[in-house]
């Protein structure tokens, strides 16, 4: 297997890590006003992801940074073509990151309510944007022979990509609710579980829709198999959740996103960006890959770096593994 293909898989892996990890913390943010009935409960929710959201976000930074190093053409074309959706993602992420840190820094109802709004918008917006971008990337961009966008600044907005946006949002909602159920105790736990069960069957449909759209256009028999697996995992996740087995449900949500990413990247291969203008203009793994030397260096770095990341991030989750509830939240202490 050549290194360019290895890097295609590594980048799929980073996206997978991002969607899985930030998926639930997006969900927690989106559901903040729904599941958090009072200030204490909202604090419980924020604190379920408090120690980890920042580390989760780095998966995006690394997915994009690694694309720059391994496939400069892919990085350049995708980011410049999707200028405005990306701007929305960035603004959302900026607001969200600041909001988590600043929300509890002043003891005033208005202050917290405003930051809660920023968290909610800052979770919906990037989830929508990332879904839009990924599905657009897989379905194809209107690019010319030089890899530049020929369509308008708004060409990212089509019904298929909007379906993609809803797919990630829907997944994040369910994933976030399952995570809250897994990480909390008491009232909020059962409410989160009920919510996931109620919205689950509907919220996961856009993901199925997206996978079907992608498969009918570029699928092969093995990717169809993966889609089947995704459906089974999603159903099982809800079944386990209704039985109160939140850990298993959460693990099955991981299978859902693994399967979805595999199906999407499987459909993309061997292109990195299909051109909707002319298939001959499509960017491929081979045509955009960096030199073998750069890929070799990067492979060494990722070979040591990525497992280390898994170990110490795993340790973080272990350290903060205890469920929390309203009784665990210390009183507000601000100057």
């Amino acid at each position, binding site marked *: 297997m050549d290194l360019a293909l290895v890097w295609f898989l590594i980048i799929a892996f980073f996206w997978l890590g991002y969607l899985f990890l930030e998926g639930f913390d997006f969900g927690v943010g989106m559901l903040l006003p729904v599941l958090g009935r009072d200030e204490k409960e909202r604090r419980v929710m924020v604190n379920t992801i408090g*120690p980890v959201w920042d580390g989760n976000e780095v998966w995006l930074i690394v997915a994009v940074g690694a694309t720059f190093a391994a496939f400069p053409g892919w990085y350049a074309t995708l980011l410049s073509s999707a200028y405005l959706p990306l701007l929305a993602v*960035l603004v959302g992420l900026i607001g969200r990151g600041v909001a988590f840190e600043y929300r509890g820094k*002043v003891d005033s109802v208005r202050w917290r309510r405003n930051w809660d709004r920023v968290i909610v918008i800052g979770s919906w917006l990037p989830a929508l944007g990332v879904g839009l971008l990924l599905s657009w990337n897989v379905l194809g961009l209107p690019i010319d022979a030089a890899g530049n966008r020929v369509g308008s600044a708004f060409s990212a907005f089509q019904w298929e990509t909007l379906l993609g946006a809803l797919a990630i949002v829907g997944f994040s909602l369910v994933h976030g609710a399952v995570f809250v159920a897994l990480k909390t105790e008491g009232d909020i736990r059962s409410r989160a579980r009920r919510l996931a069960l109620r919205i689950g069957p509907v919220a996961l449909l856009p993901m199925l829709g997206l996978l079907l759209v992608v498969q009918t256009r570029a699928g092969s028999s093995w990717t169809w198999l993966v889609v089947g697996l995704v459906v089974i995992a999603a159903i099982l996740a809800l079944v386990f959740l209704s039985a109160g087995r939140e850990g298993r449900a959460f693990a099955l949500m991981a299978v859902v996103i693994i399967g979805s990413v595999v199906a999407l990247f499987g459909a993309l291969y061997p292109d990195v960006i299909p051109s909707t203008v002319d298939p001959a203009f499509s960017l491929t793994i081979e045509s955009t890959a960096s030199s073998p030397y750069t890929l070799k260096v990067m492979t060494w*770095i990722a070979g040591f770096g990525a497992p280390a990341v898994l170990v110490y991030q795993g340790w973080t989750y272990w350290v903060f593994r205890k469920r929390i509830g309203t009784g*665990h939240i210390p009183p507000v202490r601000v100057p």
Partner: protein
Amino acid sequence: MDVLDLARWQFGITTVYHFLMVPLTIGLAVLVAGMQTAWVRTGDVKYLKMTKFWGKLMLVNFAMGVVTGIVQEFQFGMSWSAYSRFVGDAFGAPLAMEGLLAFFVESTFLGLWIFGWDKLPKKVHLACAWAFSLATVLSAYFILAANSWMQHPVGVELVDGRPRLTSIWALLTNNTALAAIPHTIAGCFAVAGAFLVGVAVWHLTRRRNEETAVWRSSLKLGGVVGMVSFALLAVTGDIQGKLMFEQQPMKMAAAEALCHTEQPAGFSVFAIGDLTRPDCENVKSITVPALLSFLAHNDFTSEVKGIEDLTKEYKAKYGEFYPVDPQLGELSGQPIDYVPNLPVTYWGFRFMIGFGALAALAAAAALWLTRKGRMPASPWFRRAALAGIATPFVANSFGWIFTETGRQPFVVVPNPTGVDGVWMFTARGVSGLTVGEVLTSLIVLTLVYAALAVLEVFLLRRYARAGIAGVMPPGKPAAEKKPDDELAFAY
């Protein structure tokens, strides 16, 4: 304005803004880890209070550094896609390494540090502080290695019109980077030092001042850090200068407004006249004779090339006119201006040095005036210390403005001893976007950043003012055991 101008403004604004946050975070993170080490080793509660207080301010600031950093990474692809395609093979590597080897560590261990108080064993918790703070320094290293490659491309060969990396080691040990890194890191500590001094003096000169020991120690630490970092800044700045005379002679000629080649050349202290005219006929400089020769080549007699001669050289090597290419917009077919914006470069250089020196002077004065338990009653002392907080920030910003403006019109500056063809005009690097797109993001990001700046200053002031009581409730024993079911820390 065309896409090029807008994209450059956006890059300038977002970068300078990002670099207001980052130095304070880096400097404070390491100092806070040091304070916590002192606490773990001595058990003196004074150090715990310092750790908590300065750590809180560091956190308020860190959030902003992170979120503005994401914009930086995306911006290359968004606004500078042609640049990204050209340099990705070499420039992308240190950027990706930063994410994989440094930024992951930083963000994960910061989470552990914030939430791990009383949850992790003391020494493990301390190790998290060090992991986090050293990773911020490592981050800076990779980013500066990437930037230095743009200033002085090494470790590459030209294949099919694009630089291809041949040695990552050469890129990571680029002499430009090895000089820039200690210089920049010292700049970070200068910021943190002045910050410590300013806030500590403010508390010490209050009528009701509590926790005197904490503020005295902070003041001393800040003062010493400020002075040591200035010494380091001067030494590394001199090394950088000498390298730049070799690698980017035009940048240094512009920094000195040196029009005509001189031997020996004098160092310009102050220039009067019209710097905006590149022929600089009207520039009168007050100079220290022969000093520039020394700064450039370590002797007082050598020749230093002026703007005029350098322009001729550049024209011969890289052409007189931009090629006719619609992608270049207004610049297509126009003469190439090899002289960077003179007023910005000239004054940027002077403001960097001037404000840096002012910061060191303030640190020295603060240490002298507070020696052996003294505390001047004059309100001017307090005002000066507070104003002193700003000086290294200003110096840092002008340093970056100088170094980035001074390399125009190149985005990848040709390396005189490197491979032919490994260079790029800034105008060539920009994405083929609509003006509307870039203008939208320029306006949105600038507004968002402005709002965030107001918020951050508001919170920093509030927490700095509140002092120790704001981070540790008074009267409670330091290492008080919490009931098992309550979190030691929660958002």
